[in-house]
């Protein structure tokens, strides 16, 4: 294919990425000119750009089309993941705009960095060779380091940024190191060539070595235990809208990327990677539930909750086959709204102008702010996986795929972990409903209540009723992609 004709097919399929890149660059210039007075305009444009990129992505084909001379691919999984990333990114960006405008921290870089991070994730989920994989991961991570250290005068925020940066740099190193092994033992960076080499049984122990290193790095990026150590500190230290962002879109990107890496180039090594993924899933589920029991800070608690939930999604990945990949995608789809809604409500927890983010601050919310309390309760029950909420359906789907793949013990372990994690979600609900009221929290803003209410409505009943459509969509996407 000539360079021109490659470009002419690639450009239209890369509109979402081009939109994000264009917005980020233009916004950076405008911001440099107008300074922080552009914050509101750029934030709103950013919401439109990120959501628009998600919508544009939906127009992509489900059958794989390679673009930019095979560096990237547009296929069902990429389309599905980009839509999720776009919408959750836009939602968290809107939350951040509302929050920063209220606290008077109107720095125009915020929408720029979010757009760049989302662009990085788009590249990640479309990666078709090891270079674009790495470029995507790094673009996302670099934007994330800056976001984590957003409140540079604040010790915890700076600590979060530094910690994130140092540990993440190590994992990027692992990713490159593993990639170099893969390249060295297969002779190619392209996923299809690696898949062919794996299929011929080439590579042997060196390839396994490279694969495991890459998995460790990806495990770090998605905060799967035992590579989760940065998560609680970063979640606690970063400003809450940034934490909300970290807890949503990057997880989807990392799960989609890991699925692609395991199912495309390394499909022939399922026996080897399945053990690793199962170990990651098991440790994440157990540690995510046990370690959260003693947390009192809501953001730290949600960090452990995200670790546990990634474990459940990984259970789907470990099951293998189209059903396993679809289960992981469905799990993330059903997990996102509850997560975003909870962070929206944590953002709303302010008392006398200062954030109030501990379990004790929730005390008696049901009497003081019954609507906020009801939404919080719904979202917490959803994320705990109690029926009839969407979170339960997600757990059901991954249990089902794990059992169908014969992985009984991990399904039972997941069930036990779910009970343990229910204990700490219940602790929050008990505080909301049973405890003597603490002084009332400030009235939440309309934007936050709207986000929380929309998220709650998605967890029940919208996504539950639409499960058939989501299932069909995810399964078609996966079947046509891999």
């Amino acid at each position, binding site marked *: 294919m000539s360079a021109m004709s490659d470009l002419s097919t690639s450009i239209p399929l890369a509109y979402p990425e081009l939109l994000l890149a264009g917005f980020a660059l233009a916004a950076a210039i405008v911001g440099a000119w107008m300074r922080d007075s552009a914050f509101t305009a750029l934030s709103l444009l950013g919401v439109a750009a990120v959501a628009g990129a998600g919508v544009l992505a939906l127009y992509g084909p489900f059958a794989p089309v390679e673009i930019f001379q095979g560096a990237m691919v547009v296929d069902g999984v990429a389309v599905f993941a980009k839509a999720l990333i776009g919408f959750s990114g836009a939602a968290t960006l809107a939350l951040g705009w509302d929050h920063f405008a209220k606290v008077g921290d109107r720095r125009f870089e915020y929408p720029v960095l979010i757009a760049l991070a989302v662009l990085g994730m788009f590249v990640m989920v479309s990666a078709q060779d090891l270079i674009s994989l790495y470029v995507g991961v790094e673009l996302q991570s670099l934007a994330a380091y800056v976001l984590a250290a957003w409140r540079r005068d604040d010790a915890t925020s700076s600590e979060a940024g530094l910690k994130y940066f140092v540990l993440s740099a190590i994992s990027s190193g692992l990713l490159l190191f593993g990639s170099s092994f893969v390249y060295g033992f297969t002779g190619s960076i392209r996923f299809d060539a690696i898949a062919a080499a794996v299929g011929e049984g080439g590579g042997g122990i060196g390839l396994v070595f490279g694969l495991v290193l890459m998995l460790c790095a990806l495990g770090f990026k998605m905060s799967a235990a035992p590579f989760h150590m940065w998560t609680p500190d970063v979640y606690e230290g970063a400003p809450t809208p940034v934490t909300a962002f970290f807890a949503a879109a990057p997880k989807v990107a990392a799960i989609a990327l890991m699925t692609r890496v395991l199912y495309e180039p390394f499909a022939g090594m399922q026996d080897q990677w399945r053990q690793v993924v199962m170990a990651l899933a098991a440790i994440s589920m157990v540690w995510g539930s046990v370690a959260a029991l003693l947390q009192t800070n809501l953001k730290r608690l949600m960090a452990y909750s995200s670790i546990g939930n990634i474990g459940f999604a990984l259970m789907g990945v470990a099951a293998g086959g189209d059903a396993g990949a679809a289960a992981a995608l469905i799990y993330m789809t059903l997990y996102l709204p509850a997560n975003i809604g909870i962070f929206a409500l944590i953002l709303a927890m302010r008392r006398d102008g200062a954030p109030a983010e501990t379990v004790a601050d929730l005390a008696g919310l049901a009497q003081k702010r019954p609507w906020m309390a009801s939404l919080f309760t719904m979202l917490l*029950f959803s994320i705990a996986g109690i029926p009839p909420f969407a979170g339960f359906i997600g757990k059901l789907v991954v249990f089902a795929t794990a059992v169908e793949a014969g992985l009984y013990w991990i399904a039972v372990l997941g069930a036990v972990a*779910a*009970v343990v994690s229910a204990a700490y979600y219940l602790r929050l609900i008990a505080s909301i409903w049973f405890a003597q009221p603490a002084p009332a929290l400030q009235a939440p803003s309309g934007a936050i209540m709207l986000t929380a209410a929309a998220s709650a409505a998605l967890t029940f009943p919208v996504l539950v009723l639409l499960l058939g459509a989501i299932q069909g969509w995810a399964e078609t996407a996966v079947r046509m992609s891999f």
Partner: protein
Amino acid sequence: MSELAAGWPILSIVTFLPAAGAILILLARMSARGDSPGYDNGVKLLALFFTIATFIVSLFAFAAFDPANPDYQLTETVPWAFGMNYAMGVDTLAMSLVMLTTFLTPLCILASWVIEKQVSSYMVLFLVLETLMIGVFCAQDIILFYVFFEGGLIPMFILIGVWGGERRVYAAFKFFLYTLLGSLLMLVAIVYMIATAGTSNIPALTEYAQDGGFSPEVQIWLWLAFFASFAVKMPMWPVHTWLPDAHVEAPTAASVVLAAILLKMGGYGFLRFSLPMFPDASHVFTPFVFALSVIAIVWASLVAFRQLDMKKLIAYSSVAHMGFVTMGIFTGTIQGVQGAIFQMLSHGIISGALFLCVGVVYDRMHTREIAFYGGLVNRMPVYAAIFLLFTMGNVGLPGTSGFPGEILTMVGAFQVNAWVAAGAALGVIFSAAYALTLYRKVAFGVIENPKLDGIGDLDAREWVTFIPLVIATLVMGLAPSYVLDFTHNSAEAISTAFAGARP
């Protein structure tokens, strides 16, 4: 009336009507802000209206239902996802439990009239709870069943925790986590069954299982997973310890629902799943269940005898009575199963009524301590008469609904294992001892506690609450055949399935 029900998704209407009421109350809360005078009363009336409407609609369903037909009836199916359906349908067993639920809930709302704290939240949760309880019995898809079964934990958790007594938070957690652990193990088993059988439809699964779809070795594991859930719900000894705590701390109406309906879900589960789907494993575990049942009957009766708290005494007596149910179910004989179903319905009414009786004096004196009372018959003759009737029902006096269930389960047990029947008979004697002692201490004698001097007899609301229960107890006791003929089909199907696997 049956023509009226034709063409309507009547089971869905019965199931979701209370939830519609809950939504209405929420909307009212949004507009009224909850501080206008008379608001709380309006909410209570709205809840009462919706529960009564649900009862009336369920009567239509009952009229449209043909008890002579052994199949699932009034079925509805809407495709959902992953091959699962929103499928509703009832057989005689389910129908009888649906009627019990819709019959008792309005009485619970009446009994909740004394609630003053966060009334609209309370009523919303109660109505949602009714939807979930009815759904459990109507669901024909095993996942849908699970959704209702487990979803019921949410409103119960909050009801106990907010409106309960002193140790309510502890009790709420214990209740939730105990039942959740059992249920999630069952969920893994359910997922396995769906994967193997390729269907989640309960009748289709039953057929698959009875054609030998699950080998006896697999059945053992599945049976244990289901047992983990139902035994906790039932509750059977030794996993019953959540029950006394939850009961004692729950508000009166929640205690009634807990004892009368939620406990029946365990028995319903055994009858719907364990026996028909895993008959081989059920045979293997029969001695085990018998042993637990007899221990529950004897031991819980003895523990009940030593209680100082009225609610705790009745809670332990529930554990004992549920022992009769599990014993009857696992005899697998038609008498045993019929007796178990009858006992479930009767216990629903009698234990519910007894908790209401405790509620009456608790509302007046705010203590459930047995020693506090004494001589109530002097001041509250009507109350004493009603309390006596239900005490006798609890003992299993012939003529009350407590008798046929107990005697049938024992007849069934005698055919299988005379020692088990003998052990259970011992429990009947003990039950007379604790129930009559309670009654003597509370009602008889002279009033010694000066605080009781001003206590008044039943008011009009309480009269209305008790009369339906009195009638139901006497009718079921004097003419048990109404119920037994009705449930005969289900009992026969279950005992045939069980007998088919007899080694």
